[in-house]
C-alpha cells in the first residue's frame, strides 16, 4: 500500500477533504449552536487535559493534576503572547 506521506498531492487532497468536511459541518450550524458547542468542547477538553496531566505526573491526586494543567496553559500563553504585551504604553502611543 503506498504511503500517502510520499505523495504531496495526495496528502494535500486528503487535508483539503478533511478541512472541507469541517467547514461544511460548521456551515450547517447557527451562531448559537457553534457557541454552545465551544462551551461543551472546552469543558470536555479540560477533562482530557486533566487526565493527561495526571498520567504525566503519575498521580491520582486530582488537585495536582489541575495545577499541572494550569502550568501547561501558562507555558502556552507565554509562547503565544511572546512580545505581544508590555507593562507600560510605548512612548508616543
Amino acid at each position: 500500500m503506498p504511503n500517502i506521506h510520499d505523495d504531496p498531492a495526495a496528502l494535500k487532497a486528503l487535508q483539503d477533504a478533511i478541512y472541507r468536511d469541517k467547514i461544511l459541518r460548521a456551515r450547517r450550524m447557527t451562531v448559537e449552536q457553534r457557541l454552545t458547542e465551544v462551551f461543551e468542547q472546552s469543558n470536555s477538553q479540560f477533562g482530557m487535559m486533566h487526565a493527561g496531566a495526571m498520567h504525566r505526573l503519575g498521580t491520582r491526586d486530582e488537585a495536582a493534576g489541575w495545577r499541572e494543567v494550569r502550568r501547561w496553559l501558562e507555558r502556552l500563553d507565554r509562547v503565544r503572547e511572546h512580545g505581544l504585551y508590555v507593562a507600560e504604553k510605548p512612548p508616543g502611543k
Partner: protein
Amino acid sequence: MTLEELALKTVAAAESAGVDFMLVGSLAGVAYGVSSASPRVNLLVAEKVAGGLGMMTKALDPFVQFEPQVPSAPLTVGRRHVGTSRSTPAYMIELFELFDDGFVQEEFRRRRQVFVPMLGRSTWLPTAEDVIVQKLRWGRNKDLDDARDVLAVQGPESLDMGYIRDWCAQHGTTEHLEAALAGIPPL
C-alpha cells in the same frame, strides 16, 4: 466552574456594573467559524459610568483573581485586565478596554446581540467581517487560521468583502487576507 458558568458570571457582572461589552477572541471566532475549545473568555469593554470596570472586577472577585498589573498591547494600545478563575480548571478572563482606534471603535459600534441557549441569555458579538479584520490584524498563526475559517464558513460571497478589504488596506494586512482566501480549498 465550567467555562459557560464563568462566561455567564462575567456577562452578568458587566451588565450590573453598567459596562458595555462584546465577546472577542476565540469565542467570537467560533461564533462564525469552526468550533474549537478555548480556556478563556475575552471581552472588549466600555464603561458607561466612571468606575464601572472596577465594579465589574469587584463583582467577579469571589470567582476570579485579577492580576494587579495591567499590561497593554503595543499593537493596539488597549489596556488589558487579566484574571484567572479561582476554582479548577483555571479558566482565564481578559478584559480589553475600548480605546481610541478607528477600527476598534467601529467594530464595537457595529456589535450585535445574540442569544446563546447554553448561557440562557443574550450576549454581544462583533460582526463576522469585524472578526476577520481583527484576526488578520493580530496575525498570529492561530489568528490567521481563525480568519481563514470564518471566511470559509461564511463564504466570501455572503460577506461584505469591500468593508474587509478597506480595513485590511488601512492596517497593511491585505497580504494576510489574500493568503487566507487562497488557503480555502474548493468547497
